[in-house]
């Protein structure tokens, strides 16, 4: 399964980005292969519609789960209809590596 995580930087040490639509990077993590891909968010400075454009981006990567600090109501509704699961993490100090570890260990 592929998971998207919003990130403040392009390494595993980077903290999770609390914003969905305007995050710095999206990390696409594949739980089967363990591969990670860091995608700079082209929508972070969009005047309008950063949320939907980011849905477009992560959904077209084929993810089944998205992890971030918050989601707007519109974005939530679209993800719901696409059957993509949303996970909201409220810890501002958690790193991408820690999140991935969590999901890796959960699998076992």
């Amino acid at each position, binding site marked *: 399964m592929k998971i998207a995580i919003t990130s403040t930087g392009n390494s595993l040490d980077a903290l999770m980005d609390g914003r969905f639509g305007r995050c710095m990077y999206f990390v696409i993590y594949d739980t089967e292969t363990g591969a990670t891909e860091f995608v700079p968010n082209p929508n972070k400075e969009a005047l309008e519609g950063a949320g939907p454009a980011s849905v477009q981006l992560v959904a077209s990567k084929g993810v089944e789960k998205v992890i971030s600090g918050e989601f707007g109501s519109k974005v939530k509704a679209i993800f719901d209809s*696409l059957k993509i699961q949303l996970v909201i993490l409220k810890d501002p100090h958690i790193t991408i590596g820690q999140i991935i570890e969590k999901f890796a260990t959960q699998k076992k």
Partner: protein
Amino acid sequence: MKIAIASGKGGTGKTFVATNLFYVAVKNGRNVTLADCDAEEPNVEGFLQGKPIRKKTVSQNLAVIDPEKCVYCGKCRDWCIYNAIICLEEQQKIYLLEDLCHDCGACLVACKFDAISETERRLGTVTTSVIEEDSVLTEARADVGIYSSVPVIKAALTASGTPSLLLMDAPPGISCPFITTVAPADFVVLVTEPTPFGLNDLKLSVETLEQLGKPYGVVVNRDGLGDHKVYDWLEEKNIPLLMKIPFDREIARIYSQSLLVAAEDDSYAKQFLLLLQKIEALCKN
């Protein structure tokens, strides 16, 4: 001359100032229009009983996509610079986010499969009422749940025409509806309360007006209620304090009966006239 009356949040007394200013201007024989631009919660009409002479519906066109005809090619999405369309080629899904559609028409041109058409959406109304000869109220009233009241406010401003004096009751806050209202103003009156919250909101409003390069001054409502910090700050920043309205039971009573204090009490009529003259003098500088 165009004067906007604004405040950082609702309930600080901007409608009180706007309606009383309107009253004294009318009494002084001015050709004046009051535009209630607080489209989400218009309440001027409660204080000024007039005769409605025109009611206009404000609407906007929107693109709609017919999923039967759509082949999920994604071209419309690529053409939409407002990010209003999500098209997922693989999942065979398409979404149009109405709130983000600016009716630019690009997607209609882009689609070669005739899957996109236009539909009309109602946003609100603009009502024009005659209060007295030569004095008019135009009210912007947005429908509940619309994404932005800006088109309704713009329609109300257009309907207000060019009277010799235009007063505009601005929406609270500093977002787009506020900016739309103050944009045409020659002067902005900021109404605040002498409390920490009042000062905080005032600072935000001032910052926005500084960015817009608008001349402004401050009216302190419910003077005597909080502390002296608002006054100290105004002095420090050299911002004109235009008027102090005392925290007075009598004013509250008159206001709660939807009456105008300038009509009930001559001394207030004089003070509001003075306020108007001060603003006019500041505008000439």
